[in-house]
Structures are given as structure tokens and as C-alpha cells.
């Protein structure tokens, strides 16, 4: 993170807080911003750090190390959401106090910090984690200490914990709709699957292959994985070229993603000549790839910064006021922004900060002011959300060319796709 972002001016902070009540008024209705406070003993029976004026919430991301690149946006979004909530009077009359912890891109550190947050600070909820590995590392601690985590990243699914809410998409939400779109709108019949060699791309491609072959009746002409950090894609590109797929379906991540797109583009397989849809390319990644190298390629996400609706307009404006005009907002950043809001709604519905009650109150919650549009919490702790497909422009933003007509049901353990 560039350091100067940390030292925002007081004025921009005030401005973004002024913007918050306007945006949130729709969420709250008129009922309760100034409503009488319930007594602390009623709303906190499990020894959480809640007193008459404040409630503590942990933010746990990598501020240092290799993952800091990706996790910065999530920290910013979560902080913004919490500041906005505070500016409207907090939750049940309590202001949220943030306890920020650094996972340092190291999974044991994530686990240890989670334990600290839950046992020493007694936080009522944690917004955090980014990689699957870090989530897997904190999961046992969460379940043992009965904590509550809002996890923002799109991920491979195959998990459903009573102590976690997943505000990003699980794999099928990204995959199925985007494959259907490639099939119907673009007439793609043959597919080449490319990913980084780890669990998310492999699970993703497994589901994709089954959908292509069994459901759509198309053909997978190749499947390739590159080790994380791989930077020379010449041979892989030739393999792709030899098979002449109608569409390349990509889930390459990190530094490899940059090399992949740059080399594809240089090899003449650019957006104008080759249909390419990526599941791991958001506005954040495009900064590093360079707009001219992804121009014309597609991404399947639930959110793009360029989505046109009132919620998003306010969100983007508030985000830029708070974190700088140059900020870009990717899919995960938006999902991270949902966490504090969904938690607030659940707490208010439950009338309690107790983890069980919050978790029990969550399914069925509807959040109408989400920047991505309307979302709903499923009883499997994932979100109903739309799938969108964006076509990248040279300036690093995407034109949304497709939006699923309905919210797509989250299905972390997809029958028939395993």
C-alpha cells in the first residue's frame, strides 16, 4: 500500500462520512438511528467486547508480505463501511471500534491473530482473510472460540461453516453463468481451460469441464496449469494455438496473470482475435497487466467498478473521497464492503451481538443498498448475487456486457459437479 493513503486529510474523512447517512438511509428506514439503546447485558450474553458505547470488531488482512498487494483494497473497503456505520450512529447505539491486525501473508500468523482477536480482544466479529489458505488456517480457531468471520473473496466453495459468512461468490456462481453466456451469446463450442496450479483454479476447472461436457455438450480441448509465479507462457500459448479453442477460460492469478496476458497479447491472441474469459481478473489486476493488454477480453465477476446504479455511484464516490481519486475498486473490494453492513443488519435483526443469534438472524437478510445491487443471504451463509460479464477497455475499466437476469443461488457443494 502506498503510505500516503494512510494519511488522509481530516476533510476527506468528514466528507465521506457526510455521504454515508444519505446512502444508508434506504437501508435503515427511519426507524432507529436515534432509537433508545438497549442495555448491554441484553445484547451481549457471551462476554464480547461490547459496552454501552462501543463494540469491537477485528479487521484481519495481510498488511505486509506478498499478499498485501491484493488485500489492501479489502481493508480500505471494510474501514470505509465501518466509518459510515459509525457516522450513522453505529449498531444498536454502539460505535464500532476497529482492531486492525496484520496476517503478514503468513497462515499461522492469521490463525494466531484470530485467536488473539477472539480471546484477548473479544471482538464481536472479524472482517478478514483473503486467500483460501488463510481462511482454512483460521477456521478451526473460529469454530473453537465461536467467532464470526466475514470473508470477502470469491473462492472454490466446498465449505460451509456456521462461523463464516462468505460475501464473495463460490465457484459455481462465477462459472456456470459465464459458460452459458460464452455458449449462447458467443457461440463458443470448444474451450481451453488455463489456471494457476492450486486449489481454486483446479476446483473451478473441474466444475467448468463437467458443465461444458455434460450440460452444454461442448468440448474441452485442453487444460493447463502453471506453477504459481510462473512467468514464461510461450509453450502454453502454442498449445492453445494448436488446439484452436473457441474460447480460453482462464484462472491464472497474481504475477503470472500479468505475464499471461502480456504474452498472449504479444502472440497475437488478443481480445480482438481470441475470445478469452478470465475469472481472476478484476480492476486491481488490470492495473498491473495494463489496459492495452486485456482490451477486448472478458471477466466474469459479480461486481465491476463501472456498474451503473445509484448505490454504486455513491459507493465509488465515497471510496474515492476516503482513499484517493486514483483508487480502483475490484470485485473483492466490493464484497469486503458488504461484510460490515450485513453484520450490522443481522445484529439489529437479532437484537444481540451474540454470535449464535447473529448467525441465526442472517439467512434471508436482504441488502438493497449493496453497490452490486440487491443481495440476499442464503441459509448456507453465502450470498445470492448476480453474475456479470465485463469487457475490458483500454483505460482499465470494464463495460458490463451481460448481467444474469436473476440472483444466482450459491451452491458451495454442487451436486453433480464433484
Amino acid at each position, binding site marked *: 500500500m502506498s*503510505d500516503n493513503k494512510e494519511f488522509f486529510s481530516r476533510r476527506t474523512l468528514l466528507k465521506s462520512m457526510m455521504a454515508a447517512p444519505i446512502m444508508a438511509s434506504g437501508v435503515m428506514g427511519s426507524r432507529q438511528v436515534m432509537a433508545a439503546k438497549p442495555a448491554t447485558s441484553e445484547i451481549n450474553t457471551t462476554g464480547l467486547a461490547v459496552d454501552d458505547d462501543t463494540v469491537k470488531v477485528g479487521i484481519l488482512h495481510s*498488511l*505486509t508480505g506478498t499478499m498485501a498487494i491484493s488485500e489492501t483494497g479489502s481493508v480500505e473497503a471494510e474501514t470505509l463501511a465501518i466509518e459510515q456505520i459509525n457516522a450513522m450512529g453505529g449498531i444498536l447505539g454502539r460505535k464500532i471500534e476497529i482492531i486492525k*491486525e*496484520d496476517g*503478514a501473508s*503468513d*497462515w*499461522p500468523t492469521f*490463525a*494466531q491473530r484470530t*485467536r*488473539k482477536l477472539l*480471546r*484477548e480482544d473479544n471482538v464481536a466479529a472479524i472482517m478478514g482473510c483473503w486467500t*483460501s*489458505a488463510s481462511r*482454512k*488456517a483460521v*477456521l*478451526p*480457531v473460529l469454530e*473453537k472460540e465461536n467467532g464470526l468471520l466475514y470473508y470477502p473473496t470469491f473462492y472454490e466453495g*466446498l465449505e460451509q461453516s456456521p462461523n463464516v459468512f462468505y460475501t464473495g461468490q463460490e465457484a459455481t456462481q462465477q462459472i456456470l453463468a459465464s459458460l452459458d453466456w460464452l455458449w449462447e451469446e458467443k457461440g463458443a463450442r470448444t474451450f481451453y481451460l488455463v489456471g494457476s*496450479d*492450486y*486449489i481454486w483454479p*483446479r*476446483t473451478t476447472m*473441474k466444475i467448468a469441464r463437467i458443465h461444458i461436457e455434460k450440460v452444454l455438450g461442448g468440448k474441452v480441448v485442453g487444460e493447463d*496449469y502453471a*506453477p*504459481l509465479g510462473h512467468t514464461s507462457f510461450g509453450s502454453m500459448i502454442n498449445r492453445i494455438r494448436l488446439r484452436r479453442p473457441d474460447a480460453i477460460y482462464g484462472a491464472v492469478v497474481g504475477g503470472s496473470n500479468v505475464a499471461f496476458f502480456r504474452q498472449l497479447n504479444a502472440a497475437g491472441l488478443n481480445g480482438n482475435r481470441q475470445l478469452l474469459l478470465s475469472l481472476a481478473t478484476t480492476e486491481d489486476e488490470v492495473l498491473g497487466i495494463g489496459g492495452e493488454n486485456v482490451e477486448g477480453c472478458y471477466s466474469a465477476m459479480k461486481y465491476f467498478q463501472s456498474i451503473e446504479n445509484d448505490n454504486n455511484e455513491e459507493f465509488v464516490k465515497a471510496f474515492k473521497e476516503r482513499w484517493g481519486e486514483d483508487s480502483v475498486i475490484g470485485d473483492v473490494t466490493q464484497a469486503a464492503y458488504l461484510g460490515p453492513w450485513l453484520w450490522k443488519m443481522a445484529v439489529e435483526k437479532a437484537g444481540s451481538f451474540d454470535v449464535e443469534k447473529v448467525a441465526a438472524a442472517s439467512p434471508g437478510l436482504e441488502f438493497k443498498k449493496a453497490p452490486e445491487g440487491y443481495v440476499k443471504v442464503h441459509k448456507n451463509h453465502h450470498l445470492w448475487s448476480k453474475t456479470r460479464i465485463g469487457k475490458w477497455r483500454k483505460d482499465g475499466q470494464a463495460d458490463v456486457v451481460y448481467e444474469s437476469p436473476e440472483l444466482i443461488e450459491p451452491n458451495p457443494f454442487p451436486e453433480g459437479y*464433484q
Partner: protein
Amino acid sequence: MNNFLSLIAEKRGLPGVLILALVLLVLFPLTMDINNLNLAGRFLAFAFVAVGIALSWGYGGMLSLGQGVFFGIGGYAMAMFLKLEASDPESTAAQTTPGIPDFMDWNQITSLPWFWEPFHSFTFTVLAILIVPTIVAALIGFALFTRRVTGVFFAIITQALVTIATILIVGQQGFTGGANGITDLRTLMGWDIRTDDALFTLYYISAVLLIGCVILGLWLLSTKYGSILTALRDREDRIRFSGYNVAYFKVFIFAVSAMMSGIGGAMFTLQVGFMSPSLIGIIPSIEFVIFAAVGGRLSLVGAVYGALIVGYAKVMFAEAYPELWLFLIGSVFIAVVMFAPYGLAGLYDKYARPHIQRFMREKGWLKDGASPTLPSASTEAK
């Protein structure tokens, strides 16, 4: 046994070991809450590796940048045992194939792979933790040292080995848990390892085993073997011309250091509750060397302090000033190499020890002539 103790006492080390034992077994448990103690336990797990590095690098002159491989073997062996225990048919009833680890089920593996089978047995697991790293190291060492691969080349090759290990573990996720590692480990033979009491006990087990490793190392160094080893590091050719088979000495000490790393890995898994490839890659493997270098490459006790101090500094400092942390650790590292090549132990020998000894002599606690010194602190490492 008497002979054993006197060997240590005659040489350097016994007072140091006693103080270390006092710090680890009394001071830490008394002054730390369970969170910090668990943290210390994690660093002690790294300290096993650091002690091994001090032996093989400080005394044997072999700098391995691949200790993560052995740490990983120990850690994964333990994790496999614990994972199998956590994957009993009842708790995995929802899976397509109950009774196998969850990540295998997600990867369409329908029966337990053959190399997982023996890890149902705790005895086998313990033996694997001790023996597999030793054998692997012996094979690697044998192949490299009999060909007289030395110094820098050895370092680079071991680094390549770590790269291979990580790519394989991440790529073969159906068998290894992939990038996420083997997670959600709960019990060791029915004993819940996640409770405070268990973490406390595990800390003690680590500390005692670690002190055992330090004593073993000191004892090895105090034998004739140790003298030859040190001589070998400084003048390999002369030892060779004296008729010793140099390679076997190196293979042996490298295998011992690998075994220690393996134990460290197993203790790490127990205390953290999971094992993942990010813990054994190139960067962690270099960090192990950092611990040994900061503590003092010629001091086994120093390596333990090195692991603890660097570990804690990282936690404390990175928390307070995340932006400055890399500057600090980078500078410390350069400073240690340039100004204190023998690390904290070297500084202690140079500045603190003479005063302490003078003080002790004045008090009549220490007889003249019995002053122990580091054997080679005055000679330059090769």
C-alpha cells in the same frame, strides 16, 4: 551417563544449556500467557531447524537453503496422522467417500492412497518423522558430498530442492491438500490439541525435546568426531589427506540436522494445527538460516535464542510498524553478517563473557583454567 555429562561440562556449553533450560522451562511459562507461550512454542519449532543449521553450517560448513524440505517432511508426517484421526467415518459421513480426508474427497479420490495408509499408526508416524528426513538427507548428502559439491553449489542445489518440493505439494493437491495444506487438525490419539492445557503441554514437550537436541549436538561436537568436523570445515583438503573419508562426516551431520528439522516440523504442526507448503518454501528456508546466523552460527544455544528473538521481533515490530519491519530485519541481517559474523553468541563471547568470568573468578565461583571458550570464534568461517 556420567561420562556423557562430563564431556559437556568439560567443553563449553553446560552453563549455557542450564540457563536456556531455565528460560524455556521456568521463565517463559511463568511470565507468559498461553497465547504468547504458544507463539514461543512455534518459534521453538523453528529453533530445531536453526540448531540443525548451526551444526551443519557453523561446524560442517554446509549451508543448506533447503531445510524447509525436512521441516516439511516432519510436519506433513504429523499432519497426515492427525488428519486421518480427524477424518473418521462418522465425522466425514457427508462425504462421497467417508473416512478419507476432506480434501481428497473434493478431488475425487475415492480411496486412501497407499502412502497414507501407514499413518494410521502413531508409532509409524513417529518413526517416519525421525527417519524419513534423515534418510532423504543422507541420500542427498551422499550424492552431493561424494562428488565434492561444496559451499555455494550445495546451497543453490538445496534451494532448487525446496522449489521442487513446493511445486509438487501444491500441484498434487489430491494427495497433499495443495496450497491450503492439511488443515483442521483436532486431536492426537483422542487428546484435543487445541485447548489451552494441550498447548501448554505441547510447549513443554517442544522445549524439552529442543534442549535434548541441543545437548545431543553439543555432545556430538565434544567427541572426536566434532573436532574432525570443525577441522574439516576449515581445511577440508588436509583432513582428506589425513586419510579420513570427508564425505561420510558431512553426510552424517547433514542427516542429523535434517532429523532435528523433522522433529521441529512435527512440533510445529501440533502447536499450530495445520501444515501448508507456504511454511516450507524458499523464504521460510532462508529464514531458518537467519535464525542461526543471528543467534550465532557456532552456537547451538545461540540458534535457539536467534529463533526466539527474530520471531518475537517480527511479531512485535511488524505489528507496530509494518512498513519499517523489512527495513529493520534487512538491516539487522546485514549488520550481523558484516559486524558480528558469529551472531549474538559471538558478541556475548567478545564483550560480556570476559566480564562475567572475571566476576566469577573474583567471587571464587570459577577456577582458573576452566574457562570455556568457543573453539573457532577466532578463525574465519570459510
